């Protein structure tokens, strides 16, 4: 035990019982060899980082703000597009998977949305012909227009659609009162109308009269209400609608022979592909389009429609997220800026830490964790604000408010990446300091 002051040997007998109960039995003997392995440095660095951030509260907050705006934008954009996506998906799925929509327009035109109504090529004759295709159970031409609807002194602007009797089946409408108009009504082009819930409420709630049998005015023509539809619920004004027979719409309202689209229902979703091909063949023949030439119409199954819609939402999402990404980059640069200032300000502290045994990696981790915590705080605040914004907007537009795991995890992932990417350079700069120079810095 003669050389117990020597570190090498002291490590072999760390727990030597003290001869004296007093502490000062020379600090050297007591303390040597008791150091455990370096392990929990991350925890210690975390505490150091929090302390440093706390002592610069205002600066930390402002820096975190840079991140928070970006993350809030990402989350709001995600909530919005996810809501829009859910809505579109919902309304297309309500068609059922066995519905094929025929729309005018060249197939080269991208997507269903851009092509609708750009050309006029479909007629009632096409619809009638399609009814004879095998596996087809129902066909309805559809023509849409916007019109002022009046009852008494009540006035409502709504969407008026000309459809036929099959349409009730295709879209699954239930009657609240009265009945769907008859085939005879359609053939004769009689002025009869079906009201959606929203329209019925708007026109008849004030007077309290039973809508069925009443005469309403669409544009300058009188129509007799034959039925009121049950609310479909959901969102986006599905119930804000008036249905009239397709012939009535063509003759009285539109004065045209062309229809906007034809919806065809197959007997089962397994036959959709076959029906779709047959539709193309039949309409090509009716339109005298030689094979190989471009068609002037397009038949799309609801599955394809869904894909197109999802594609559309994806483009929208990436656009919004891209814009938010720019703002995140700006926030990240703000973090880098502040961290560089912080490193410069605390050069002496870094020197002190190095002189008492901090490794370069300790210094680097300290500043890296500081940047990480900074951006994580911004990320969490941004997530909350983003959800709040998303909630407000979706509420105002009637879209569903959707929170997914992705939109909860994304802020953490994004802000961690930003913290590490933009914190790394300042942290490495801090760790590369020469302890002698750093100690001399005032």
């Amino acid at each position, binding site marked *: 035990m*003669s*050389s117990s*002051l*020597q*570190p*090498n040997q*002291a490590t072999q007998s760390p727990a030597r019982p003290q*001869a*004296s109960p*007093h*502490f*000062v*039995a*020379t*600090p*050297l*003997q*007591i*303390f*040597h060899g*008791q*150091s*455990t*392995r*370096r*392990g*929990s*440095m991350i925890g*210690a660095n975390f505490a150091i980082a929090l*302390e440093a951030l706390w*002592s610069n509260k205002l600066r930390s907050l402002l820096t975190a703000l840079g991140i928070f705006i970006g993350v809030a934008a990402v989350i709001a954009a995600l909530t919005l597009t996810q809501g829009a996506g859910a809505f579109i998906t919902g309304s297309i799925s309500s068609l059922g998977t066995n519905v094929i929509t025929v729309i005018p327009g060249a197939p080269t035109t991208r997507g269903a949305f851009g092509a609708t109504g750009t050309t006029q090529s479909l007629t009632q004759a096409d619809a009638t012909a399609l009814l004879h295709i095998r596996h087809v159970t129902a066909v309805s031409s559809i023509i849409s227009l916007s019109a002022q609807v009046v009852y008494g002194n009540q006035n409502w602007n709504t969407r008026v659609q000309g459809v036929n009797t099959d349409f009730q089946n295709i879209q699954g409408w239930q009657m609240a009162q009265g009945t769907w108009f008859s085939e005879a009504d359609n053939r004769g082009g009689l002025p009869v109308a079906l009201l959606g819930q929203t329209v019925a409420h708007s026109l008849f709630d004030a007077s309290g009269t039973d809508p069925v049998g009443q005469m309403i005015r669409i544009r300058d023509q009188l129509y007799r209400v034959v039925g009121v539809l049950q609310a479909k619920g959901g969102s986006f004004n599905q119930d804000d609608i008036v249905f009239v027979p397709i012939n009535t719409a063509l003759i009285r309202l539109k004065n045209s022979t062309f229809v906007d689209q034809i919806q065809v229902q197959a007997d089962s979703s397994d036959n959709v592909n076959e029906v779709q091909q047959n539709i193309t063949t039949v309409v090509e023949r009716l339109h005298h389009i030689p094979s190989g030439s471009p068609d002037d119409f397009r038949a799309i199954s609801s599955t394809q429609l869904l894909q197109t819609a999802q594609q559309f939402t994806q483009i929208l999402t990436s656009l919004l997220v891209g814009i938010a990404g720019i703002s995140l980059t700006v926030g990240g640069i703000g973090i880098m800026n502040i961290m560089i200032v912080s490193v410069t300000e605390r050069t*002496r*502290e870094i*020197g*002190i*830490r*190095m*002189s*008492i*045994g*901090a*490794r*370069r*990696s*300790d210094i680097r981790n300290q500043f890296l964790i500081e940047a990480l915590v900074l951006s994580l705080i911004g990320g969490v605040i941004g997530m909350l604000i983003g959800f709040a914004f998303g909630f407000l907007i979706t509420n105002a537009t009637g879209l569903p408010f959707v929170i997914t795991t992705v939109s909860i995890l994304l802020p953490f992932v994004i802000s961690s990446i930003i913290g590490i990417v933009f914190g790394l350079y300042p942290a490495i700069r801090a760790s590369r300091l020469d*302890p*002698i120079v750093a*100690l001399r810095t005032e």
Partner: protein
Amino acid sequence: MANNDYRPSQDGAQPTSSQDGSPAIYDLATIPQMAVVRPEEAHTTLTSTPIVAVRNLTKIYIVGQTRVHALQGISLTVKQGEFVTVMGPSGSGKSTFMNLIGCLDRPTQGEYWLAGKLVSHLSNDELADIRNRQVGFVFQGYNLLTRTSALGNVILPMVYAGVSRDERERRGRSVLRLVGLGDRMDHKPSELSGGQQQRVAIARALVNGPSLLLADEPTGNLDSRTSLEIMAVLQALNEQGLTILMVTHEPDIAKFAKRQVAFRDGRIVRDEPVLTPGSAKEDWTKLIKKAAAEHKIQVKEETR
């Protein structure tokens, strides 16, 4: 420093909490009693492995186009339990030497053994570990973390050593008590006097049980009374076997060491033992008594 604070508490008068913390002297006084120093043991270790052994240590800085020879082949051995002062004018290379001994820097040439281990060519991480465990630094400017309490500062080296939380707390408190700051552990450095800050720095240097204490002008920022207090602490620690290497340019301070080494132009020009090292504690007592005597006269004059 205010003169009228030099009032020994023995004469019954309450020491108005002096800026340099007079009560600390009682803790200091107890150090020798508490220490279990076995002189025979201390002597035998003197013959064992030297704490510091440098051979032909050379450091060349390249400043622009010119090569500056800061150290030109220094050879020196410091044994266990020695108290060495390094003296010399500025530019003599003593700071460079201390940086090398403290493992803050690597020599251009030459070898450096610290406690029997060749450390002159270790990696950065290994040097950091040496600084952490084998060397304790005390600087002229204290170099404490200003936002952290005295205890927090003392704990820091143990954080980097990976000592457990409870052990850090326990050790930190006992070392602060050792240097006489038992009642000021939670004070920030700005709430402490220069002498107290330097004690915190000494406590921090001791906390991982180093083989060597390096003091770079530890009294440079202190008045003469506080300087004596700090030197008394260092002497007490040295008496317990702690090896101390101290840079100073004040002969009044250097006389408390056991050996003086003088540098000039990057070379050792003088290396001799101090035949009768002064006792900082005795000098301090004398100073206090003198000040007290003056103070009493003043009091008489005032009360008359």
